[in-house]
């Protein structure tokens, strides 16, 4: 990746302060999303991927969140240095989010057209574009077409309760596309839906990346989805990125003990073998391990692991943060 990626998170550290206790949620998280690429951020529940996502979008409330270091660069500019207003200007316009649960992410008491119209109206205002009602309707219909929804007129007049889950998810994506964003962040796309519908949604996202040149950052805990769609993957554990690389490489040859354990957990259809989990649980973020955060659960841990490991390059474009990489060749 020679040019500056569209989104670059560099050594981001975030603490959460509640009731006098400080939880060190993110520690030096770094990731990149170039344009025209589908990047996945993968990890188990509670590993901090949602926090990362919200930090990028600027949705974290400070307090209780506190930024302890690092940068989030979008299109070259450090988002953390921008004012609230400037960040708000970017939201929904240059960078958009697709929410996870299509049932609860749409306001039940307004029509789809109403909601999309509002979003577009205020986005236009921030972009200093002026569209009248007719033009807005046209844009809404256009976007609904992009997500392959037939009969945009009927959809506009409908209330969320009248539509199926799959349709609602498409609408959420359409909402994100209204102002032609350059970065799309998808939070667990399709998890709330059945597998078939989820596959369609993922296909749709894929098409959007290729056809419209979007940068897509997908947040998920589902490795199967990552393998199917993503170009590049960042694996997160307990607030740190432990491994990253092109999807096929990481899946073929995971190098970090955590990634390896994760892959081993996926039940295989052939070859037998019992279902395995990973012993132990996520650390207490208010008193995390001083060094590598996976150390308490790691079968390869040694005393060196009490110091935080940096990322070592293991292959072309792939790196892992571990002192014991020689053991995972």
């Amino acid at each position, binding site marked *: 990746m020679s040019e500056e990626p569209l989104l670059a998170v560099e050594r981001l550290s975030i603490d959460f302060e509640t009731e006098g206790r400080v939880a060190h949620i993110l520690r030096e998280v770094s990731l990149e999303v170039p344009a025209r690429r589908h990047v996945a951020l993968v990890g188990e529940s509670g590993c901090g991927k949602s926090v990362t996502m919200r930090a990028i979008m600027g949705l974290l409330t400070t307090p209780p969140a506190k930024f302890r270091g690092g940068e989030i660069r979008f299109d070259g500019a450090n988002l953390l240095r921008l004012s609230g207003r400037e960040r708000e*200007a970017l*939201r929904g316009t240059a960078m*958009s989010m697709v929410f996870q649960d299509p049932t609860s992410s749409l*306001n039940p008491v307004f029509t789809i057209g109403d909601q999309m119209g509002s979003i577009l109206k205020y986005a236009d205002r921030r972009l200093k574009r002026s569209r009248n009602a007719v033009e807005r309707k046209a844009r809404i219909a256009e976007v609904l077409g992009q997500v392959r929804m037939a009969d945009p007129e009927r959809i506009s007049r409908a209330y969320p*309760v009248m539509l199926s889950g799959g349709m609602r998810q498409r609408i959420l994506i359409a909402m994100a596309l209204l102002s032609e964003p350059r970065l799309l962040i998808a939070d667990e796309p399709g998890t709330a839906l059945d597998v078939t519908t989820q596959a369609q949604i993922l296909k749709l996202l894929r098409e959007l990346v290729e056809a419209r040149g979007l940068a897509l950052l997908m947040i998920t805990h589902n490795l199967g989805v990552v393998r199917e769609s993503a170009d590049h993957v960042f694996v997160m554990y307990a607030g740190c990125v432990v491994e990253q690389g092109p999807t096929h490489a990481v899946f073929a040859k995971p190098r970090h003990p955590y990634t390896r354990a994760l892959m081993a957990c996926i039940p295989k259809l052939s070859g037998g073998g019992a279902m395995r989990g990973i012993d132990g649980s996520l650390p207490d973020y208010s008193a995390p391990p001083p060094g590598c955060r996976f150390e308490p659960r790691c079968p390869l841990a040694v005393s060196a692991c009490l110091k935080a490991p940096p990322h070592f390059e293991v292959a072309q474009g792939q790196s892992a943060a571990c002192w014991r990489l020689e053991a995972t060749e």
Partner: protein
Amino acid sequence: MEFVYFLIRRVLWSLLVLIGLSITIFLIARVMPGDPARMALGPRASQQQVQDLKVKMGLNLSLTEQYERFAVGLAHGDLGLSFLTKRPVNDDIRETFAATLELVLVTIVIAFAIGVPLGVVAAVNKDGWIDNSVRLLTIFGAVMPSFLLALLLQVLAGYVLHILPTTGRITPDSPVIANITGLLLVDTLLKGDLAGFWDALRHLFLPAIALSAVTTGQIARITRASMIDVAKQDYVEAARAFGVPDAVRIFKYMLRPAFVPPMTIMGLEFASLIGNAFVVELVFVWPGMASYGVRSILQKDLNALMGVVMISGLFFVVANLSVDVLVGVVDPRVRIRGMRA
């Protein structure tokens, strides 16, 4: 269509409630020990007069027959004859009904106009000083006896500061206001009678404040809780993620779904509102149904009492039906699924 079925069911429920109410109040009234006819006429009336009154009122019939009469009368909108005034209760009530209706309507308007914004601000400012002040106000509204508040207001604004009238609906000896709806505020405006409007408003002010204290607090509290609940919903964060400006987000996006619980509570509160109206009307000598009711109770005028209770019940039932309709308007989920969310 579902919504229509829903409404039909609610109307039927209301009818059931009214029937049940009529039976209940009838039984209570007739269970009374003593002779109502004798009491109405006083100790010096002759036995014959008492007997005549009994026949006239139908008191000599069996209980079921009496109830039948009552029920049939009700169905026709006839509430029987007052023991005291010997006039149809209907007439007596009609005069006083409008006064109470006006007071109650204004109270509801105040409760919403002040309560909802307070609740919204308290929710947005959660745990801040505004929130705590609103909470304090709500508590005081809830624990202040309405008659005490009425008395205090009367003394303060009326006698001490002399800025507002303390009794009645209009200044005595003022020119007659045409009786179109019976609601003075409306009638005076329809006639372009601004002086009369102002007069009626001034008289309404204190009783309405006294009456609305409790309800406004309740509405504020419920609105606050409801807004906080809505704020936790995903679609609110989604709106933020899409860059919808805060003011719009709060007042349009959040308020509309949050509006349903206050409305529902208002429907339920109606019963205690009418109860409080009794006391407030008495203090301010408001010529409303409540004071009529109290007087008829003190005079043991049973038919009048039954009439007042039935009308109160009707009030309540109509209020709740209105709430159901309004909820359907605001929340499409109710409309489409045909039931309370």
